[in-house]
């Protein structure tokens, strides 16, 4: 058991490309859940349309990558409107199930044989992000020091991912501290009061859904660019659950909550993974209890347990303010 290498794995995981992408998607979810109180359980659907916007534009239609990102964002806006117009008048828990169902419907259609000429069906699409990597200003083999050593490719994705996260967080900060954001929080706190002050609650909810959806689509396109492939089954509802874990861990309705949450989430997940792997292979945990091949499953079981304990004992997360977040339907 090499404890140093486990810790350095975990340290890399907490700033790696995945952490940045999940942080970005969580910033979008925070707009929905944290600031507006919308129970959007279909954030993964926005990531899906973002990712496929890039993949289909470049791999199937041969358009430039930048246009693909814009198409992805456009799809997210359309999705938010299509999803929001019927469901935002519903009670919170209905919205949750309608959005999770919408995400699954999209996934089924993207992987179906109908869509195969466009999306590649279950095989998905690959090798469409060369345009992004050609812009990579880092040319060396590896960068960093000690445990924080990344390849030029990862570093480029990380720089873009974290910059986008910070930019979007600042944008959300500006909006939330503008009158627009105050109305959003009023909607979350007491919809009736906001309505009686003459605010168009429905419209504000819809705007919030669109804004968070666009941020989610950006994260989705970055995720597709990171692995140079899209595959419908990696956009399943569990991704949304992780995003909720991240938002709640960091603290919902806090600007830096999603970022902090993602860093800690990925530290814990990579740590658990490395640790369990080392512990099973060195015999510290006998193979009669956990086998090496079960590590992935055990790690996700821990994520579930963590989400439960967090919600039971510290529902406001690390940065959150309990008073500001009364988790209740309407």
């Amino acid at each position, binding site marked *: 058991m090499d404890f140093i290498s486990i810790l350095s794995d975990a340290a890399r995981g907490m700033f790696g490309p995945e952490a940045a992408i999940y942080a970005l998607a969580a910033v979008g979810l925070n707009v929905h859940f944290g600031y507006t109180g919308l129970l959007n359980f279909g954030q993964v659907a926005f990531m899906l349309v973002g990712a496929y916007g890039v993949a289909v534009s470049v791999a199937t239609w041969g358009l430039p990558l930048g246009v693909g990102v814009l198409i992805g964002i456009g799809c997210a806006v359309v999705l938010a409107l299509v999803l929001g117009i019927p469901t935002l008048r519903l009670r919170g828990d209905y919205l949750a199930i309608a959005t999770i169902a919408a995400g699954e419907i999209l996934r089924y259609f993207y992987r179906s044989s109908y869509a195969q000429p466009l999306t590649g069906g279950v*095989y998905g699409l690959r090798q469409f992000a060369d345009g992004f990597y050609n812009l990579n200003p880092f040319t060396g083999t590896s960068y960093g020091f000690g445990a924080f050593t990344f390849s030029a490719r990862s570093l480029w994705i990380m720089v873009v991912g974290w910059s986008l996260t910070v930019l979007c967080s600042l944008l959300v900060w500006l909006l939330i501290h503008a009158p627009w954001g105050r109305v959003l929080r009023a909607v979350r706190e007491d919809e009736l009061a906001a309505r009686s002050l003459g605010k168009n609650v429905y419209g504000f909810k819809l705007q919030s859904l669109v804004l968070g959806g666009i941020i989610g689509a950006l994260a989705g396109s970055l995720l597709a660019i990171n692995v140079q492939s899209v595959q419908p089954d990696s956009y399943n509802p569990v991704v949304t659950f992780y995003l909720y874990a991240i938002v709640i861990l960091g603290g919902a309705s806090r600007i830096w909550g999603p970022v902090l949450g993602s860093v800690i989430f990925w530290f814990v997940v990579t740590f658990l993974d490395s640790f369990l792997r080392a512990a099973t292979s060195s015999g510290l945990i006998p193979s009669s209890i956990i086998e090496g091949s079960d590590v992935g499953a055990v790690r996700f079981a821990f994520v*579930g347990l963590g989400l439960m304990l967090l919600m039971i004992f510290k529902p406001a997360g690390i940065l959150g303010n309990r008073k500001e977040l009364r988790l209740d339907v309407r």
Partner: protein
Amino acid sequence: MRARLMALVAACFLMLLVCAPGASAATLPSAVPAADSGTSIKGTLEGPTDKPVPKVRVTVKQKGTSVGSATTNAKGEWQVSVPKPGDYTVTLDVSTLPKNLQLRSKGGETLPDVSVRPGSARTVIFPLIPKSQQQESEEGSSGGATEGSGSGGTDQGSTGAGDTGAPAAGQPPINPQDSSTPFLNRFLQMTVEGIKLGAIIAITAVGLSLVFGTTRLINFAHGELVTIGAVVAYVFSTSPMHLPLVLATAIAIAVGALVGGAMELSLWRPMRKKSAGLIQMFIISIGLSLLLRHLILTFFGSRRNQYSQYTVQETVHLGPIQITPRDLFVTGLSILVLFGVAYMLQRTRIGKATRAVSDNTDLAEASGIDVNKVILTVWVIGGGLAALGGVFYGLTQAVYWDMGFNLLLLMFAGVILGGLGSAYGAMVGSFVVGLVAQLSTLWFPVELQNAWALLALIVVLLLRPQGILGRAERAG
């Protein structure tokens, strides 16, 4: 008379409760181990007709240096362990391919930048076509590399076929889109299939709906009660126990009821005492669902299993309809159970109390109903019904680790279609969902049947947000 009958049922139930938990705890860990897949790259090479292609060499390289190579076995499977997560290049040796096959696209034999994440086995697909067909010219657009769905032990079979909800055992005996059979016959056949699916969804969804009605909790972990039921019955009906499936099912129902009751007592009752918010409890149930699902994956493995009894059966012909005796029995028994639940809700004391608590908890409590006892009963009944539904679903499809989660969205669709909180609504809604899913296969591919069922949910939410039997209630 009625009281005596109830007492008898209760006594049987208690007996099962006492003998079940020890036995299940002793046998679960010895269940089938998961397929071996640490950090690795793997795949199954199949020809155009899904025939495995053996003796083909696959090489994995990183930055030009070879990491390992493998040759496909008789089932077309290959796996290369890699030392650490990262990006690899996977190459298929074209010279080892059978002469009549080629890759779907030019240059598709090399897949660069296949990134392997810690702990997951990355599945890589090389699509093959017969030599007679034209190769796609576009470079690199063909090879598909899929993430092992992030959970380590998942193989392609379980992610691929599992989601469409229609593996071999669940497929109807006649092809729904085969135009040689008259349309009416196909329609009747799929209606029967729809009723079967709807009945199974209904017995699992009733518990979900009752729990929502009495506590306003949307329980995401309800699907796991379904899986637990199916898995417990599987473990007891195979080696080393070899109990008859009927007995194993009885044990499964008892375990399901016990787990349901234990959840209420250890988790939800204390949370209600802390007056936790509903969204808070909703998210706790998501965590619980993740936890249970992956524990089941750890102990049960990722394989799809069939029960040893009643799996292979001749179909019988009832007029234009073909159905196996097993499916007929499952459908009939499910409908009977639903009538039993309706009778209980309508006529017995506890059923009336349950409806009272669903209508207005405070008023029910004020009129002397022990609300906590009612809620506990609802959890026990819901758990038992979910487990029974799990066995039925396993019988008609297969037993696998995330079967409950696959069914969960259909249950939600049924519950919301019918009207949240109304048990009868959940039954009606579930039949609608089952029928929509199966009848859609008359015109559309089977892989989309769940999508149409969920679409029906959204359409109903648009037109009648309170559901078919729900009460109108304005929100927002």
